[in-house]
């Protein structure tokens, strides 16, 4: 289901955005709220542009993104092996599944206060919370993915004399790959929420969540909205560009999923 480009769709999309922007402008200038609370668009753009020019937007964005990526990496380091073991060995599954199903529904941000007590405010706590948020979607999806590898493929490989090692590398791993990707993608979404909450509650040195939180003290609603747009842009870029490209180049290319899936 590839999205066909059409002028009509572009025009309609633009019209929608213009309509909403106009709505905001009328609202902002109507004086219903003070302009300090709902700044008009030109002010947001001006402040946002200034943040981009003095480099603080990039610096904060880089810190936030860095935390997410580090957390995602640590989560993969834990989650992929655990999920694989759970999918392959009955014993591992029996042991880990109850723990996972109890820990998974606890929102990662509930751990923030206790992590602060254990590790102090700042970087460690934020990254740990992000890691916690990202680990469970990865474990869960890898586990499902390994179990979803068709038994027929496994038996075919075994009867053709594959060793356990070959079976794992040539059949299980590629077979589970689409699920692993789904897991990492979901984990990114969760990590992205956790990092903002973590930055607000645990106060690490830089970061977009921190900027929004601090701007509250100075009634800087332009900075808040500009940073919100920055957060959205990074999130959208990762979701649509980075993950889509990685998926197209790997699992789609190997024929494990249909390319260009919406």
């Amino acid at each position, binding site marked *: 289901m590839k999205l066909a480009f059409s002028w009509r769709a572009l025009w309609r999309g633009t019209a929608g955005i213009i309509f*909403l922007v106009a709505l905001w402008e009328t609202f902002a200038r109507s004086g219903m709220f003070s302009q300090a609370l709902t700044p008009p668009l030109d002010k947001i753009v001006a402040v946002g542009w200034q943040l981009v020019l003095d480099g603080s937007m990039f610096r904060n964005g880089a810190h936030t993104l860095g935390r997410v990526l580090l957390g995602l990496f640590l989560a993969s380091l834990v989650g992929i092996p655990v999920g694989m073991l759970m999918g392959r060995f009955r014993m591992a599954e029996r042991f880990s599944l109850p723990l996972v199903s*109890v820990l*998974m529904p606890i929102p990662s941000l509930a751990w923030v*206060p206790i992590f602060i007590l254990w590790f102090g405010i700042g970087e460690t706590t934020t990254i740990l919370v992000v890691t916690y948020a990202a680990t469970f979607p990865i474990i869960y999806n890898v586990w499902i993915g390994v179990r979803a590898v068709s038994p027929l493929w496994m038996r075919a490989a075994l009867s053709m004399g594959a060793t356990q090692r070959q079976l794992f590398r040539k059949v299980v791993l590629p077979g589970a790959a689409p699920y692993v990707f789904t897991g990492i993608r979901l984990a990114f979404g969760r990590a992205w*929420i956790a990092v903002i909450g973590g930055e607000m509650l645990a106060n690490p040195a830089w970061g*977009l969540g921190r900027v929004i939180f601090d701007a509250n003290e100075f009634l800087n609603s332009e900075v808040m909205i500009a940073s919100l747009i920055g957060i959205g842009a990074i999130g959208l870029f990762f979701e649509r560009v980075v993950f889509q490209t990685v998926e197209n180049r790997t699992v789609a290319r190997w024929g494990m999923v249909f390319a260009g899936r919406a």
Partner: protein
Amino acid sequence: MRKFLGDALVLGAPFLVLAAMWEVVARSGVFPQKLFPSLEKVFVTMIRVAGDGILWTHVEATLIRLALGFLIAAVVGVVVGILMGRFRMVEDVFLPAVSAAYPIPGLAYAPLFVLWFGLGNLPAVLLVGVASCFIVIINTWKGVKAVKPMWLRAAAVMGARERQMFWKVIVPAALPYILIGVRLGLAQAWRILVAVEMLMSVDQGLGWMIFGARQFLETDVMLAGIAVIGLIGVLLEKQVFARLERYTLVRWGMLTA
């Protein structure tokens, strides 16, 4: 009976191992007892706060907030989603906004909401509603879009009016998607509610209980709170939604159990 005991042992074993590990760390003195209490202490604290009613007022406040926020998300999400799916105009206006707002984590709006609505209950509930409505909108919209045109044409040919078409064809056909959206919405609401309570300084609520306990180094209260939060999460997932699905989708034959 014997089999039951065996199952219980298999299910309980991982928790016993984890508990044992926790106890070893707690009693070894690597961390001060105050920061890393023994399970016994956590358990006693849990009984205490449950006994004198503190826990229940917090649980109640959190659940009410969750219910209200989720209600906003579900109603707004389903209505907007259906309108977007049915009418081109609405889709054109809302789709860019929804796709732009969707990747922004709801929590990022928290300070803005504080600025607009002050601290307390109103912004907390609104924020939970706003943060979890997008996923409901998107799933509902997809569901309405995915109704087979053949069914619509068949109903039209047999003389269905607009209203019948809506209730008898579109709603049942889109329902699996809508329920997935609602379910994801509830999960989302639950995930951020605890943090929202910490940020909005509401006067009661589990998130606030945990956050407040930090000031007095009451690690046992915090751990008891986290345990209760986990328990509510499991119950929401296993009880509320599994049931809802059984009563509607499976019964109507849209999905096999």
